[in-house]
């Protein structure tokens, strides 16, 4: 018997730059949250994770970030720029991977400035003196997301779109190469949905330090419009991974979401329209 083959495969996969997931599984007790997920995302690309509720999108993102918590049993490895994420110490990891969670509020009234400034923590030692340089950096990322005027406003009083942009600004301040977002356009109106996604896409296209972005989304057409790659997840399994035009097929989407749909591929991109029959909906 020669065990060299899987080892060989591993070494070629992981030396690739970008994000690599290798046979990722996650379970909470008897419940499997993720089963055997493997993919590779080249650096500087935007990946959209699609799937029904409870498919494992959030679990996948947390697993990539390494924040699933130790109550869950996991196996498999995530590599970012050739390094196993779980092996990177927490403080160092925060310099390479930034996370934007679903919106939450704090009991104490933090200002936007204070929330964004937390992005500097990974770059500071445990005991750090305040520094006027910090304020400049915070204002500069706030300017990049167009919020410099709201710096002193209480975070909780900002609109959903502004809060989301604020959290993206904080992630920018972390100067991490990989940005993870859990449903960044939830609860946002159409304008902000497009503005946030366009912002993320433009960040991935920056010439020197383009970000690699992974985000979970619900709107398939938005995902098709702004993502370079799509991952379709259902029941904790990765059903498809690739460019929107390849991945989005009527057959797959019907299987995943349980609704009849029409997929149009045009030169402007891919468009999906769900047109469920009454019978399908009543089945629910």
């Amino acid at each position, binding site marked *: 018997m020669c065990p060299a083959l899987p080892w060989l495969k591993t070494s070629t996969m992981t030396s690739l730059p970008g994000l690599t997931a290798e046979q990722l599984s996650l379970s909470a007790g008897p419940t499997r949250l993720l089963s055997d997920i493997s993919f590779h995302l080249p650096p500087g690309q935007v990946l959209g994770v699609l799937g029904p509720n409870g498919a494992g999108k959030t679990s996948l993102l947390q697993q990539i970030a390494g*924040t699933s918590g130790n109550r869950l049993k996991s196996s498999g490895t995530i590599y970012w720029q050739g390094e196993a994420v779980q092996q990177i110490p927490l403080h160092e990891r925060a*310099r390479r991977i930034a996370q934007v969670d679903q919106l*939450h509020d704090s009991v*104490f*009234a933090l200002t936007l400035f204070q929330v964004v400034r*937390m992005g500097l*923590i990974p770059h500071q030692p445990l005991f750090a003196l305040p520094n006027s340089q910090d304020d400049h950096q915070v204002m500069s990322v706030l300017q990049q997301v167009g919020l410099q005027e709201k710096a002193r406003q209480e975070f909780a009083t900002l609109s959903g779109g502004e809060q989301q942009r604020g959290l993206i600004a904080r992630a920018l301040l972390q100067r991490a190469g990989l940005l993870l977002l859990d449903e960044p356009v939830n609860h946002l109106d159409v304008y902000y949905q497009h503005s946030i996604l366009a912002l993320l896409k433009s960040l991935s296209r920056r010439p020197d330090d383009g970000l690699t972005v992974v985000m979970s989304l619900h709107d398939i057409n938005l995902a098709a419009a702004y993502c370079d790659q799509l991952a379709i997840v259902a029941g904790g399994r990765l059903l498809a991974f690739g460019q929107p035009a390849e991945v989005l097929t009527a057959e797959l989407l019907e299987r995943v979401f349980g609704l009849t749909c029409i997929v149009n591929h045009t030169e402007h991109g891919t468009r999906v329209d769900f047109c469920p029959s009454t019978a399908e909906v009543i089945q629910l």
Partner: protein
Amino acid sequence: MTSVRLRWALLLLSALFSPLFASLFGSAGLSPGVVWQCMTDTCPGRVEDMIFFDIRLPRVLGALLAGGALAIAGATLQNVTRNGLADPYLFGIVAGAGLGAAIVSVLPDIGWLPEGTSLPVAAFAGAWGSVFLVQGLAASRWARTPEQLLLAGIALSLMLGAATHMVLYIGEPFAANKVMFWMMGSLTRLETPHLLLIAVPLFFAVILLWLSGRRFDAMLLGDKTALSLGVHAGQMRMLGLIVCASLTAVVVAHCGGIGFVGLMIPHIVRRWFGVNTRAVILGSLLLGGVFLVWADVLARTLLESQELPIGIITSAIGSVFFLLMMRQRA
């Protein structure tokens, strides 16, 4: 000058001058002239010298330190549990000290310790004992989240309280009286050497919290966010609990139970100076100190011929304040 700067300046000034003004009040009055003379030159007489340097000054300085320490303990606990209602009282620290005090008061004097020190030592041990129990709970599976930790602390507090009452009920009435009086809090027993015992942990706590303030800020947005920013949420919470316990234990051991300072002062400070940890810590240090100095003046002067326990004053002011604050919110 912005209003925030002005507030800082006023707070700093009042922290500097409150002890001096407060030392004028007491059962034996000192005139401003005498205090001025004591400070700049020598006191006019032996009696004034003794009252000012041996009784009044240690007491007002002790109030300043104890108030600051309690307020910082409360602020830290509120930060790491993300709960505005957290207070050293809720974590069984004071109840543990009370149990320690009750046990030594009931026991016959064993003579290990110098006269008069057994009660503070037992209270200190009791406070730390309960902190270890809370830490054990925090590290266990039952109390992972801040909410569970708070509930565990309350349960522990009630349990220790019940044990204290049991000990007192069985013990002799004189001991019960002594412990009851101690639980109500008083700065009478503070002497100059005790000041150092409070000042040293307070100094280190302020430095530690101030320097790692940004990380305590990150705790405010939840453990997940803290982790994603590279902050070990569990470890920070542990650190916060230890700091809080150290401060509370020394204060409670020497001054007994002084309620509401740890709960109330950080709330006022957040309203005046914002919620970031550094401002809250420095503000609580100063405002907590000033508050307790003047609460102690009330304790000394409200009744003609005797002192009121300071815990009664702080709890009375604190509860009214709290209700007013709730009304303002609603």
